[in-house]
């Protein structure tokens, strides 16, 4: 019935991305070893990239792989290795009584509410194509570049400042204590 209404390839792509996303996400919260959690996170990120490609967000899919799977997860793995914190956490230990049940109920209410809203109402009510129309393939990159460097130019420049501040902050936070002494030694 579903395959009759929509073309089979798009259903297959959706099923693939949904499988990658959900299995990876459950892996992140269920495995004990942080290294395995980071690898499950890569699986989820690749699933999201597949969903991006299926919805003609080609540039974002590439950025998803390069920045998220390439840089952020490597940063996670670097910190895990640097600290040597793998195989530490007791996953079944509950410091707050009933915490897991309360979390499950709260999450179920939130997700159920979202899905119920979606089923009851027509969510997409705004005007279409306010900024620029979408187009598939390389036109997508062109349009995204135009939007970022014209409509969102101020926000783009602000992200440059944000990244510099974040890098300086991270260096200050993570540097060794007594840097003056180490300078003398060097």
């Amino acid at each position, binding site marked *: 019935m579903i395959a009759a209404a*929509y073309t089979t390839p*798009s259903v297959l792509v*959706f099923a693939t991305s949904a499988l990658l*996303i*959900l299995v990876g*996400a*459950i892996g*992140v*919260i269920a495995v004990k070893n942080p290294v395995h*959690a980071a690898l499950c*996170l890569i699986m*989820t990120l690749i699933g999201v990239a597949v*969903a*991006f490609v*299926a*919805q003609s*967000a080609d*540039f*974002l899919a590439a*950025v998803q792989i390069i920045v*998220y799977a390439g840089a*952020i997860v490597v940063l*996670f793995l670097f*910190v*895990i290795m*640097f600290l040597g*914190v793998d195989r*530490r*956490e007791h996953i079944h*230990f509950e*410091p707050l009584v009933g915490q897991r049940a*309360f*979390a499950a109920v709260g*999450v179920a209410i*939130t*997700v159920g509410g*979202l899905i119920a809203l*979606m089923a009851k109402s027509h*969510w*997409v009510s705004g*005007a*279409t*194509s*306010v*900024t*620029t*129309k*979408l187009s598939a393939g390389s036109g997508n990159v062109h349009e995204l570049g135009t*939007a*970022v460097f014209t409509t969102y130019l101020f926000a783009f420049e602000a*992200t440059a400042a*944000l*990244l510099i*501040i*974040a*890098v300086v*902050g*991270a260096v200050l*936070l*993570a540097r060794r204590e007594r840097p003056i002494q180490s300078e003398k030694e060097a």
Partner: protein
Amino acid sequence: MNVPAAWYLVLAAGLFGIGAFGLLTRRSALIMFMCIELMLNAVNLTFVTFSRTLNDISGQAIVFFVMVVAAAEVTVGLGIVVSVFRRRSSTSVDELSELKG
């Protein structure tokens, strides 16, 4: 024809729920950061889906900015995790209880 937008929205809601559950139940600061990444990705997926539905590039531009902010957040957050670990040799958030009355 592509699959309806509602499928991707339900998928994103599920991903957000899994991330929120992990954030509420896990104790390691590193795993909690990963759960925040899961939730950010769920929101990104929603933005891209609405961008397709409304046939508008703005949603994708916003996702681009969300990715930049996520990168900055992870950089600073992991810096904090490293400096906390230096002081107390643990990344468990339960042990950070100096402000407990």
